[in-house]
């Protein structure tokens, strides 16, 4: 099972990869939103983690939710500090606070 992590933050990626691999899954990385969309639409990804500090991360969530090939993939938003707007929270299976990871 591939779990895609969309983040430019190496430490966040390392922490998430550790958790994903401990659960027996494979972690894949995309360093920006376009790479993330490209990967999610061309690979059999079963979960996507999106670092909300990336530019246009909100649009990535909405796009993944809108496209037929990716709309069934559970989305997790990872955020530091600010609260995720309500309409984006609705699109996500879960919202993770980076500080608690």
């Amino acid at each position: 099972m591939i779990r895609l992590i969309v983040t430019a933050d190496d430490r966040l990626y390392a922490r998430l990869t550790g958790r994903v691999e401990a659960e027996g899954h494979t972690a894949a990385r995309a360093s920006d939103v376009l790479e993330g969309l490209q990967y999610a639409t061309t690979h059999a990804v079963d979960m996507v983690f999106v670092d909300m500090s990336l530019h246009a991360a909100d649009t990535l969530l909405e796009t993944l939710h809108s496209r037929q090939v990716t709309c069934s993939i559970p989305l997790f938003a990872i955020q530091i500090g600010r609260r995720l707007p309500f309409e984006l929270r609705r699109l996500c299976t879960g919202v993770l606070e980076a500080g608690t990871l």
Partner: protein
Amino acid sequence: MNNIVRNAIRVLRGLFAFRAFIAAFVVLMLAVHWSATPPPESFRHASPLSAVFLLPTLFTGILVFVPGLERRAGRFYLPVALALSILSFSLELGVAYLNPGARFHVALPSGQEISLFWASTEMILLVLVPCMLAGAVYGVRGALRAATFATAVHLVVGFGVGIAGGEVHSFLILLPLRVAVLYAFPLITGYLADTRLREHVALEEANRRLRGYAATVENLATSRERVRLARTIHDTLAHSLSALVVQLEAVDTLLGTDLGAARAQFDRVRQHARFGLDEARQAISDLRSSPVEELGLGPALEQLAEHFGQRSGLHTEWVLQGTPTPLLPAQANAVYQIAEEALDNVERHAAAAHVMVRLNYANGITLEVEDDGQGFDPATIDPRRFGLVGIRERASLVDGHVTVNTAPNQGTRLTVHIAELWES
């Protein structure tokens, strides 16, 4: 009256119109022939019963064309019309057996002759049509009833033909085949109609369940949202208010003993009240949906341009072109956020006096943000500056394309075009 009954009545009318056309053609040919030559033998020696057998066709033909009769007769109209049709055409079939060789020859100007039947055993095909219509409308049971009625009428007609001295031998030879045909085709039609009806019922049931599921999901979402609202109110307003009550009680106690401590406590109360107010405002802001969801893309952009003009003091113009097309939230929100980022760039970097925001719905959707500011030389400026990379990324996520037209002291025009709008 449902569609299938209405269509069956139309087909029946068409059948009688066809019969009338054939009859008119034969009468015309007979008239022409009669004026030129003596009447044909078969016609002169026609059985007197023929006219009686033809009368029901005339009567039924008139009946099916009486305007508004189907509305007055209601659900009995079609079964009666079908039964009369079967009866009429079966009797016409009898005419052919009463008058064997019921034909006449017409000489053409070219010297050739054509042979025309004025009564034909092929009438069985016209009997078949109402039987099949009964199958189509009432299913297998209707088909069985119509076929049995047609067979019974057929046997009675054969009996009548025998009594009147007609051609019974050829009637009996073809009887088994005709009965088989009278049952087989209507039963096939009836079976197909029953299958379609079962599928229709299953589809209705599925639709009903789907509506139920949708209502359940909606109720669940509403319930979940209520729980979230309750938690938010509990964590912000209720928490702050209960803290305030405790602190005010402390102020009350201190007022009688230590005025300095009471004042210090009062300051803490004020601080807590402000903090609580900020939290409540934040919670309300979180609960609000985006302007695009609330107003739609066009009005949300118009509001954005208006607020931008008020905030920045720049003369801001809003232009909407074309007929608005419904967009998926992903694309609409992306366009709105790009406009926000572009206006932010104008305010921070352009040194402009005038800004125009234009939304055009022709060939997809096009957003333009144009200013009359200092512009820049694209060749010398790092393309990653001014957040252009971010704008391009956001646009690419929703299949959009960004163009920037600018030159030093000639303003900047940023265009985002989405050619392919996503369907919901």
